[in-house]
């Protein structure tokens, strides 16, 4: 297991190093190196997945720890840990990454710095895997930042374009603000518990080591802020739409499937230690984001921006899922979303590759020219809209909405948590169908581009087909996912696991499972695989969140699920009808804009959030900088130079006084002596006799004195 994990982790890193230094010299720009590397990781991931699933136990846990920083004052352990959630995440991340690599070969063909692109992709894969595999908060944070850097590099790949340069900077800085919150959270945990490894954190939290629930909530919320930054939730979502400046496969990989999912993964990891009101905060943020982003998506005319906002909205869904305690709903939606959103992005990539424009109003009627892309696009759109049974999206989305409904019914004052996502569901269907119609149906708006359009090569169409296949087979892996992936509850971890740090692999099958098993049985989950499509009747089992924050009773959950089933069908139909009604006829963008001018303008400008940030945060900061620099120059330097001028003034003052008074005296004396001198000078007549006479006079006087 250790070797598999290390292979999976380190091979992309090796590929990155190879690309960085040897990239240009390798044939075909070394893309085969990166693809090979990610292929190896995929194999390793599959092997791990198979190993974990074969184990059959939901709480399967394997970890390898080594003392990384060991000093008298403190020790920082760093290690890898694989449990069922990691196995799934590995599969998702490496799977999508592999498909994106393949897609990139076709898409990025002929770009300069081709080798660097693949290098950065490998770096991204490495950091994402590190994040997923790491077993402690600090490790996750390291992965967090590395992922941030690789997204910076990838978004800024077309850096000669000024907009790309700004976008990558904006992405990194917004992430950094999120990381600020996460850092504080980690430090709060370190301060309170003195330990960072997740298992130990669960254990200590379970044992009530936190000073007070309030601080635990604050810690939870702070860590969630990190997730908000990374998964582009409401306050910090501004970077994701701009991140579309990067190449499309990058958007597919990073901004659809993996990186943005990291936030949800973190919340998933922290699930056991999140207090009820922390979860509430998460749910609200999720709901708001879902609704808010969906509305903006309606009016976007750049195909990638539509998908970007849809991603933000879907992430909101996942947060709502986790917020209301539906561990399975949130995380499963993450996996399904990864699949169909990646497919959508890659689809848009192939469209852009074909018509060389991102503006949907310059496309139209492409379904005849690009059948495969069209087909996969429709499947993924169905998935995101939650088309029942056939698509994986249905399972995850319904579960979230169902739980949210149940939550809403159970705690009516939080009804908004259900209402917003429900409305967002309708809007999602609406904008997805709008994009589909404008792009693929109707007559081509730009004849010349339409003629030029053609289906991409095998590297482009293959990934699309694979992803759409995964989307369709949703029902197959819904059951196993639900059975295997259960949150590690803090109470179950026996203390002795953490007694001693150990180096090397410790395959704990024994100790943990039976204690966890007991929990599973008690939860009353039937063993039967969940093959039957209709979801409603499985509602019998009631699965309250492990920590039981909300203790949502079975009844409200039950009604919730049934109601949601009908509501979502209704939403589906409503959305599709509305969109076709509006967009089918050859309406142009301006016509529509005029009709809804007011709301349209607000939505189009993304609620002026960017402008607000610019005015509210960036400009005052810049102004403050100029002020402090000026202050630095004027005041401090002023003080220093002031003291210098002061001393100069003093010195000149003393100089003046020196000149007037002291010099005066000296000159006075000089002039006096001068006068005497002059007087005496007349004495010096130069005639010897006078000298002699004076001399004698002197001696005579002396003699007289002497004698008398």
């Amino acid at each position, binding site marked *: 297991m250790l070797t598999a994990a290390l292979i999976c982790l380190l091979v992309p890193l090796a590929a990155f190093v190879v690309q960085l230094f040897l990239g240009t010299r390798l044939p075909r720009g070394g893309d085969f190196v990166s693809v090979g590397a990610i292929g190896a990781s995929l194999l390793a991931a599959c092997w791990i997945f198979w190993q974990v699933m074969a184990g059959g136990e939901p709480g399967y846990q394997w970890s390898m720890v080594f003392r990384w920083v060991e000093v008298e004052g403190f020790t920082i352990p760093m290690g890898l840990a694989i449990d069922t959630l990691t196995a799934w995440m590995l599969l998702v991340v490496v799977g999508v990454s592999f498909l994106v690599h393949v897609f990139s070969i076709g898409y990025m063909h002929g770009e300069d710095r081709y080798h660097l692109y693949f290098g950065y992709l490998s770096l991204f894969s490495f950091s994402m895997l590190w994040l997923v595999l790491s077993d402690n908060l600090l490790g996750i944070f390291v992965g967090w930042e590395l992922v941030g850097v690789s997204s910076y590099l990838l978004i800024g790949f077309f850096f000669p374009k000024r907009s790309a340069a700004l976008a990558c900077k904006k992405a990194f800085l917004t992430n950094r603000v999120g990381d600020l919150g996460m850092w504080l959270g980690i430090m709060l945990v370190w301060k309170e518990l003195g330990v960072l490894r997740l298992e130990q954190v669960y254990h200590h939290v379970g044992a009530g080591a936190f000073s007070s629930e309030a601080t635990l909530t604050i810690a939870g919320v702070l860590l969630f802020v990190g997730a908000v930054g990374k998964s582009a939730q409401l306050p910090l979502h501004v970077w994701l739409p701009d991140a579309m400046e990067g190449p499309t496969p990058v958007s597919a990989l990073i901004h659809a499937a993996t990186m943005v999912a990291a936030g949800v993964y973190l919340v998933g990891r922290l699930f056991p230690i999140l207090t009820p009101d922390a979860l509430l905060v998460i749910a609200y943020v999720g709901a708001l984001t879902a609704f808010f982003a969906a509305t903006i998506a309606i009016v976007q005319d750049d195909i990638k921006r539509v998908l970007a906002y849809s991603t933000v909205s879907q992430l909101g869904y996942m947060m709502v899922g986790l917020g209301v305690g539906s561990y399975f709903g949130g995380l499963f939606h993450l996996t399904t979303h990864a699949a169909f959103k990646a497919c959508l992005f890659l689809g848009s990539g192939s469209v852009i590759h074909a018509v060389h424009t991102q503006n949907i109003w310059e496309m139209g009627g492409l379904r005849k020219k690009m059948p495969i892309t069209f087909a996969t696009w429709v499947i993924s759109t169905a998935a995101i809209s939650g088309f029942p049974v056939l698509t994986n999206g249905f399972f995850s989305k319904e579960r979230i909405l169902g739980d949210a409904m149940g939550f809403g019914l159970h705690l009516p004052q939080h009804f908004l948590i259900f209402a917003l996502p429900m409305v967002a569901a309708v809007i999602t269907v609406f904008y997805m169908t709008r994009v589909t119609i404008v792009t693929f149906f109707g007559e081509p708006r730009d004849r010349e581009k339409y003629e030029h359009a053609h289906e991409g090569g095998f590297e482009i169409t293959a990934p699309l087909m694979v992803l759409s296949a995964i989307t369709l087979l949703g029902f197959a892996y819904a059951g196993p996912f639900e059975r295997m992936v259960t949150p590690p509850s803090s109470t179950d971890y026996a203390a002795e696991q953490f007694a001693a740090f150990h180096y090397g692999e410790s395959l704990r099958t024994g100790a943990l499972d039976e204690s966890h098993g007991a929990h599973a049985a008690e939860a009353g989950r039937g063993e039967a695989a969940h093959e039957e499509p209709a979801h409603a009747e499985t509602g019998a089992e009631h699965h309250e969140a492990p920590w039981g924050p909300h203790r949502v009773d079975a009844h409200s959950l039950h009604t919730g699920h049934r109601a949601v089933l009908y509501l979502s069908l209704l939403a589906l139909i409503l959305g599709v009808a509305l969109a076709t009604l509006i967009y089918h006829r050859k309406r142009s963008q301006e016509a529509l804009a005029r009709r809804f001018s007011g709301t349209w303008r607000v939505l189009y400008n993304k609620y002026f959030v960017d402008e607000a940030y610019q005015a509210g945060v960036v400009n005052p900061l810049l102004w403050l900088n100029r002020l402090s620099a000026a202050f630095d120059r004027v005041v401090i330097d002023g003080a220093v130079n002031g003291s210098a001028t002061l001393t100069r003034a003093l010195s000149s003052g003393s100089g003046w006084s020196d000149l007037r008074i002291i010099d005066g005296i000296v000159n006075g004396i000089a002039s006096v002596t001068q006068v005497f001198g002059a007087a005496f000078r007349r004495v010096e007549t130069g005639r010897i006799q006078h000298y002699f*006479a004076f001399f004698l006079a002197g001696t*005579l006087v002396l003699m*007289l004195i002497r004698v008398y």
Partner: protein
Amino acid sequence: MSFEASIWYLVALLTLGTGAYVVFTRNIVRAAFALVFTFLGVAAMYVFLRADFLAAAQLLIYGGGITVLLLFGVMLTHRHEGMELKLDPLKALPAVAIAGGFFVAIWSAARRADWDLVAPVEPVGTSEAIGSAIMTTHLLPFEEISVLLLVVLIGALFVARRSGEEEGS
């Protein structure tokens, strides 16, 4: 007054007279000749004081040497200049005052000081005593004075040579 005293007075008077003449005469040549007589008077005084060697030396050096030297000086620097050696009384006044002052000082000192006189002993031939003294106790000054004379000799020659020859060296 004994015979000797009267001769002494005579000689003293003679010396002082010629001395005054040297001082007050207009004619510088006459002054020079008067100087000779003054030196003779002083030599006589030495004889009275039983310093015979000294008298001879005085006569020899002063009488012979210095007066001739002065005459040379007079002759060389005197040719075309008038004899206007007049004495302006205004300048004389301070000089008289100082000279008088000095005389009074000396006079009073001489009179009031009680020299422990010792009975004048009849010295017999001082030259032998002077000779031995020069060669023994006063050898150093004697040597120095010889060096001095040599230096003066050269110096005088050097200073007094014709201005033309300076560049010669």
